C-alpha cells in the first residue's frame, strides 16, 4: 500500500508553474495528440501529406512574382524564390503554431470536460504538429538547392537548429499565453489571424533586413521574429548571425513561456467550467 500514489484533489493555488514531472508522465498522450492531428489533417485532404509542401511553396511562388519580379526587391544576390522560401519556412511554422495554438483550448472542449491530463499538453501538441509540418516542408529546400545549383553554408549545421529552437520557444510561449487568453476573451480569436498577417510584413521575410535604413533597424529588431528569420536565412546563405538579436528573441521567449504558463495554469482551473 505504501507504494501507491496518493492524489490530493483540492482547490489549487493561483500561482503555479508547469509540473514537468507530470507532463513527462503524460508524454505518450502528447505523442498521440500530435499523431492524431497530423493523421487527421492528411486524411481529410485529397492532397494528403503534400499539403505541408504546397502551402509554403505556393506562398513562395506568389511572393516571388509580386516582390521578386514586379517590385524587384533585392535579395542579397540569392535567387529571390529561394530567398523568400527560406524566410517563409520558419514563418509558416510560427504562424501556424500561434494561430492554431491560440484556438487549441477552446477547440478541445470535449477532451477538457471528460478526461484529466495536464492541460498544457493541448497548446503543446498544436505547436508540435506545426513542427512536424515544418520538417516536411523543409525537405523542399533540397530540390530548390539543386534547381538553383546552390551550395548552402556550413553554418547550416548549427545555425538552423539554433534559430529553430528560439523560434519554437517563442511560438510555444505565445501559444500558451494566447490559448488561455482566448478562453477568457472570446473576441480575441478574430483578431489573431489578422495580427499574424500584419506581423508577417513587419518581419523581414519578403525583404531583407539590409533594405531597412540603418536608423530604423533597431525597431525592426525589437520584433523577436526578425532576428530569428535573419539567423535562419543567414545560416543557409552565409553571413554573420547577429547573436545579440537572437539572444533578445530567446529572452523574450523565455519570459513569455514563464508568464504564459503561470497565466495558463491559473486559468486552467476553470477551463472545464467555462468551455
Amino acid at each position: 500500500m505504501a507504494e501507491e500514489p496518493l492524489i490530493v484533489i483540492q482547490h489549487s493555488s493561483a500561482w503555479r508553474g508547469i509540473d514537468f514531472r507530470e507532463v513527462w508522465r503524460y508524454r505518450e498522450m502528447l505523442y498521440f495528440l500530435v499523431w492524431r492531428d497530423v493523421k487527421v489533417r492528411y486524411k481529410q485532404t485529397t492532397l494528403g501529406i503534400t499539403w505541408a509542401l504546397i502551402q509554403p511553396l505556393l506562398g513562395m511562388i506568389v511572393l516571388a512574382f509580386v516582390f521578386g519580379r514586379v517590385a524587384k526587391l533585392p535579395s542579397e544576390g540569392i535567387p529571390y524564390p529561394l530567398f523568400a522560401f527560406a524566410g517563409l519556412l520558419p514563418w509558416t511554422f510560427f504562424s501556424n503554431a500561434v494561430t492554431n495554438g491560440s484556438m487549441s483550448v477552446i477547440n478541445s472542449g470535449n477532451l477538457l470536460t471528460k478526461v484529466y491530463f495536464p492541460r498544457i499538453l493541448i497548446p503543446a501538441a498544436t505547436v508540435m504538429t506545426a513542427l512536424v509540418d515544418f520538417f516536411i516542408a523543409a525537405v523542399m529546400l533540397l530540390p530548390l538547392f539543386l534547381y538553383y545549383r546552390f551550395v548552402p553554408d556550413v553554418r547550416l549545421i548549427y545555425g538552423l537548429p539554433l534559430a529553430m529552437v528560439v523560434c519554437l520557444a517563442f511560438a510555444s510561449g505565445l501559444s500558451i499565453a494566447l490559448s488561455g487568453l482566448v478562453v477568457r476573451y472570446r473576441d480575441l480569436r478574430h483578431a489573431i489571424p489578422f495580427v499574424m498577417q500584419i506581423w508577417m510584413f513587419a518581419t523581414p521575410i519578403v525583404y531583407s533586413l539590409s533594405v531597412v535604413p540603418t536608423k530604423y533597424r533597431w525597431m525592426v529588431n525589437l520584433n523577436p521574429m526578425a532576428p530569428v528569420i535573419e539567423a535562419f536565412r543567414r545560416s543557409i546563405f552565409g553571413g554573420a548571425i547577429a547573436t545579440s538579436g537572437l539572444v533578445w528573441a530567446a529572452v523574450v521567449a523565455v519570459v513569455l513561456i514563464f508568464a504564459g504558463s503561470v497565466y495558463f495554469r491559473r486559468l486552467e482551473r476553470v477551463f472545464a467550467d467555462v468551455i
Partner: protein
Amino acid sequence: MSEFPVRIENVSKLYRIGAKLDQRTFRETVSDTVLLRRRDRSPERDLWALRDVSFDVRHGEATAIIGQNGAGKSTLLKILSRITEPTSGRILVRGRVSSLLEVGTGFHNELTGRENVQLNGAILGMTRREIKQRFDEIVAFAEVERFIDTPVKYYSSGMYMRLAFAVAAHLEPEILVVDEVLAVGDAAFQAKCLRKMNDVASHGRTVLFVSHNMPAVKALCQTAVWLKNGQVVSRGDAASIVTQYLQHSSSFAGRDSVAERLAAIPADPAFRMESIRLLQGRRDVELVANGEPLEIELGFEVFRETLGLHVFFRLLDLEETLVFEAVHNGHETVARAEAGRWIATAVIPANFLAARPYQLLIGAAIANGRELLPDPIRLTFDVQQTGLVDRAFPGYSPPGQLAPLLEWRLEPARATQ
C-alpha cells in the same frame, strides 16, 4: 492518512451563474478598466452544486451515487476525475484512477478503428505497451474484427459504441469512476456492459458509479450515497438506499412539489407545462384505487401554433421498466397544436393497474423536432387494491406490471371433426 482508496472530505463546489467568465469580451474588459467600472457579483447568482460532502469508499467496494438531476452527482464525478476543482474541501485518492464520463472520448471519425483504439487508450491513460497487449482482446470484445482498418465514420452506431466501450472496459484501474455509460446502446449491448462492470466490481476493484438505472445500481453496488441539492441525504446498503430514494424523492405526495418542479422548468418559446394532476372521481388523489378509473390530467399552454406538438406520459415500474407510453396527439396524422391553454386528460380504466407503486414520466415534444421538457417530470404513485377482490384467494395480488381485468368467455368445447 487514510487506508481508504477514496476519502472525500467536506467537499463543496460553488458555481457562479450569470457572471460567467466566457461572456466577457476583451473589448468590454478594456472599456471597463478605462472607465473604472466594476462588475458587481451579486450573491443570488451563486449556486452551490455541492455542499460539505464527506464519505469514504472502502477498498474493493462498488458505491453508487444516486439522486435527481441537479443533485450534484455529475459535479462530484467531475471533481473525482480532476476535471474541475472543488471550491473547498479535499479528496484523497490512493491508486490509479480511470474515469469514464463518456465512452469514446477523443474518437475521431476520420481515423480507423485501430487508430481510434490507440488514441482513445492513450487518452484514457493506457501506455502504448498496454494498448498493444490488449488490442486483440478489445477488438474481439467489440466484435469489429473485419472493420478494424476502416474509418469509424463508416461504422454503424452500434459498432461505434461497442468499440468505444471495449477500450474503456479493458482499462485496469484500481479505482473506476463511471457515469451513466450504460444509458446508451441497445438492450443486448447494455447487458454486455453490465456484465463487464460486474466483472470489474467483483475483482476487488473500487468502483464509483453514477446512474439512474436502479436495478443496475442494486445489482452492481454494495453501498449507495444519496445526494440531494448538493448534500448527502443518506448513505448505506445499496438496496435500502434505493428503496428510500424511490419512495421519497419522487413521491406524488405534496402538490407543492409538483408546482415547484413545473416552475423550475426553463422557459420555452413554444410551450409551458402548467399542471399535472391525478384524479379519481374528480378528486386529486395520491393513493390510487385500482377499482376506479384514473385520470391523468396534463395542463399546458401553447404560445404559438406548432405542428406536431404533443404531450405524453410513460408509466414505469420502480425498476425503470417501461410499462407503456401514451401520447395525446398524433396517432393518425401529425396534428397541429393551436395556441392557447389546454388540458389533456388520459383515462386509465378501472381494474387495469396492479397494486404496486408506479412511476409516471411526463414529457412534451415536437414530432421530428425537439423535446420540450428535456428533463421529463418524474412522479411516483402507489396503487391500492380496491377493485375486484379475489375471493377464492384473499390477499393474493396478481404478479406482473399490470393487472387488467380481461373479459373471459367459457364455453363447452365441441368435439372437432
